[in-house]
C-alpha cells in the first residue's frame, strides 16, 4: 500500500518536472502559465474543484452523516458554479487582458485607480485563503494517518508540504495543471472501481449503525442549502486562484467550453453517494464520517489499490494547495508590497508560500473546530468583491469608495448576524451581506457618481 502511494507521488513530481518544458519566463508565465494553457489542460485545472479532497472525503461523509440538505447544497453549488463561470469567466479574462492583470486586486487597482482598494482586497483574500489550506491539510492528515499510523503526523504533513513547494518551484501553475490531469484520472478510476465493487457487493439486508456516527456534522435546512448554493456558486467566480486559472486560458471560448463540460463531469457523484450508502448499510467501522469513502475502499480493494486511491485523494489536496500558493504569492508581492525588485519579489513569494503551508498544516494539526464553518466564512468574504466587479463591467460611474463602503457594510452585517446569533430564517449570512453590499454600492454611486470612468464593456468595444 505504501509503495503504491509513494510511486504515485514520485510520478506526480516527474510530471511537474516535465511541465517545465515549454514554460516561458517572467511572473505571468509562472503565475498564470503565460495565458497559454490549451483546452485540455485548462479543463483539468479549472474543473479540478469538481473532484477535490472535499468531494472525495467530505461529500460521502456528508451523505453518511447528514441528510439530503447536504447533498442539495454541495452538488447544487458545484453544478451552478459552471454556468456562473461560463457567463462571467470570459468577461474576467477580457478584463484581465485589458489591464494586464494577474490577480483580482490588479484589476480593481487599475480600473478604480485606487491603491487602498487594491490592498484591502489583497489582504482580505490572503486571510480568507488560509482556511482553504487548512481544509486541504485536514483531509491529507486523515489519509496519511490511515496510510502510516506509526509515523509522527507533523513529519508526514511536512513531507506533503515539501511536495507542494516542489510543484510550485518546478513549474508554477503549469505544474498544477499537469498534475491535475494525473489526479483526475486516478480520482475517476478510484470512484468507478470502488463504486462498481460496492454495487456488486450491495447488501440485501441493512445493518444498523450506531447513532453517534449517523449524527449530522452540520444540520442543513433547505433555506440554508439554497442560499448557500447562491453564495458559493457566485463566490466561486471570485476565488483568487480561479482568476489565475481563467487568465491561464487561451481565450473566452476555451473557458466557456470547459464550463459546458464541467457539469457532465459530475457524472460520478451518484456513485460516490452510493458508496456512502453502501458503507452505512454494511455497518463498516468509520471513526469519522469523512473517512467513509476510504473505509469502503479499504473493505473492497487490495492493499496496493488502496494506496493508489489514497494517493489520488492526497494529490487532490496538494494540487489545490499549490494553486493557492500561486495565488497568494502575487497578492503579496504585486499588491501588498509593490515595487520590490525581482530577487526581493522571489524571496517574499517563497517566504509567504512557506508560511501559508506551515500555518495551514498547523491549523490541521490543531484540529481547528468546525472546518465546515471556516469554509462558509471563506465564501462569505470572497463573494463580496462580486458587486464591484459587476459594476465595473456595466458602468463607469462607480468609485472605489462605493466598492469599499459596500464591502465594509457586508463585513459588518455578516459579523453582526453571526455574533448576535440571528438565524434570519436559515438564510446564509453571506447572501444577506451580498445584498446589503449591492444596495450600499448603488446608493453611494447614485450620490457620488464618478465622472471620468468608463465601463469595462465600453472599453472593450
Amino acid at each position: 500500500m505504501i509503495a503504491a502511494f509513494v510511486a504515485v507521488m514520485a510520478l506526480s513530481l516527474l510530471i511537474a518536472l516535465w511541465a517545465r518544458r515549454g514554460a516561458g519566463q517572467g511572473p505571468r508565465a509562472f503565475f498564470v502559465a503565460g495565458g497559454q494553457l490549451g483546452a485540455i489542460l485548462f479543463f483539468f485545472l479549472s474543473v479540478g474543484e469538481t473532484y477535490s479532497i472535499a468531494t472525495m472525503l467530505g461529500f460521502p461523509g456528508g451523505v453518511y452523516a447528514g441528510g439530503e440538505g447536504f447533498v442539495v447544497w454541495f452538488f447544487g453549488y458545484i453544478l451552478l458554479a459552471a454556468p456562473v463561470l461560463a457567463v462571467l469567466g470570459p468577461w474576467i479574462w477580457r478584463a484581465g487582458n485589458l489591464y494586464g492583470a494577474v490577480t483580482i486586486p490588479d484589476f480593481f487597482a487599475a480600473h478604480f485607480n485606487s491603491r487602498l482598494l487594491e490592498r484591502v482586497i489583497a489582504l482580505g483574500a490572503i486571510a480568507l485563503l488560509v482556511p482553504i489550506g487548512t481544509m486541504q491539510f485536514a483531509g491529507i492528515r486523515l489519509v496519511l494517518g490511515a496510510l502510516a499510523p506509526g509515523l509522527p503526523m507533523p513529519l508526514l504533513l511536512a513531507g506533503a508540504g515539501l511536495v507542494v513547494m516542489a510543484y510550485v518551484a518546478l513549474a508554477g501553475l503549469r505544474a498544477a495543471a499537469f498534475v491535475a490531469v494525473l489526479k483526475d484520472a486516478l480520482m475517476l478510476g478510484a470512484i468507478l472501481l470502488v463504486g462498481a465493487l460496492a454495487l456488486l457487493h450491495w447488501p440485501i439486508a441493512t445493518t444498523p449503525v450506531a447513532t453517534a456516527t449517523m449524527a449530522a456534522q452540520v444540520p442543513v435546512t433547505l433555506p440554508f442549502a439554497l442560499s448557500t448554493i447562491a453564495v458559493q456558486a457566485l463566490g466561486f467566480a471570485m476565488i483568487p486562484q480561479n482568476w489565475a486559472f481563467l487568465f491561464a486560458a487561451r481565450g473566452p471560448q476555451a473557458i466557456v467550453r470547459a464550463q459546458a463540460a464541467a457539469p457532465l463531469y459530475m457524472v460520478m457523484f451518484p456513485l460516490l453517494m452510493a458508496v456512502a450508502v453502501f458503507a452505512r448499510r454494511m455497518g463498516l467501522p468509520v471513526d469519522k464520517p469523512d473517512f467513509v469513502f476510504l473505509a469502503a475502499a479499504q473493505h473492497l480493494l487490495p492493499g496496493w489499490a488502496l494506496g493508489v486511491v489514497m494517493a489520488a485523494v492526497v494529490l487532490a489536496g496538494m494540487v489545490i494547495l499549490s494553486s493557492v500558493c500561486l495565488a497568494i504569492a502575487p497578492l503579496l508581492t504585486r499588491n501588498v508590497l509593490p515595487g520590490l525588485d525581482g530577487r526581493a519579489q522571489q524571496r517574499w513569494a517563497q517566504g509567504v508560500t512557506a508560511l501559508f503551508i506551515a500555518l495551514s498544516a498547523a491549523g490541521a494539526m490543531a484540529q481547528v473546530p468546525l472546518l465546515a464553518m471556516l469554509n462558509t466564512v471563506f465564501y462569505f468574504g470572497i463573494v463580496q468583491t462580486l458587486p464591484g466587479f459587476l459594476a465595473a463591467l456595466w458602468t463607469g460611474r462607480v468609485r472605489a469608495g462605493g466598492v469599499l463602503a459596500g464591502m465594509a457594510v457586508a463585513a459588518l452585517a455578516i459579523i453582526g448576524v453571526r455574533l448576535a446569533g440571528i438565524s434570519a430564517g436559515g438564510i446564509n449570512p453571506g447572501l444577506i451581506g451580498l445584498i446589503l453590499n449591492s444596495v450600499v454600492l448603488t446608493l453611494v454611486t447614485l450620490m457620488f457618481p464618478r465622472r471620468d470612468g468608463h465601463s469595462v464593456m465600453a472599453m472593450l468595444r
Partner: protein
Amino acid sequence: MTALARALITLAVPVLLVLLAVLAVPADGPTCLGIGLRIWALFACAPATSAWLWWRQRAVPA
C-alpha cells in the same frame, strides 16, 4: 440582445432546473441505491446543464 440579457438567460435555465428538482420533486417515495427521487432529479440537472451551456457557447467568439 444585450450581453446582460444573454447572460441572465444562460444562468436562468440551470437555476430553474435546480429549483425544480429541489422544490417540485418529493423527498420521500421510491429510492434507487438508497438515493431518493429528489436527489436523482438533482443529479439529472448536470447533463441537462452541460447540454444547455454547450448550446449557448456557440455564440462566444474565440
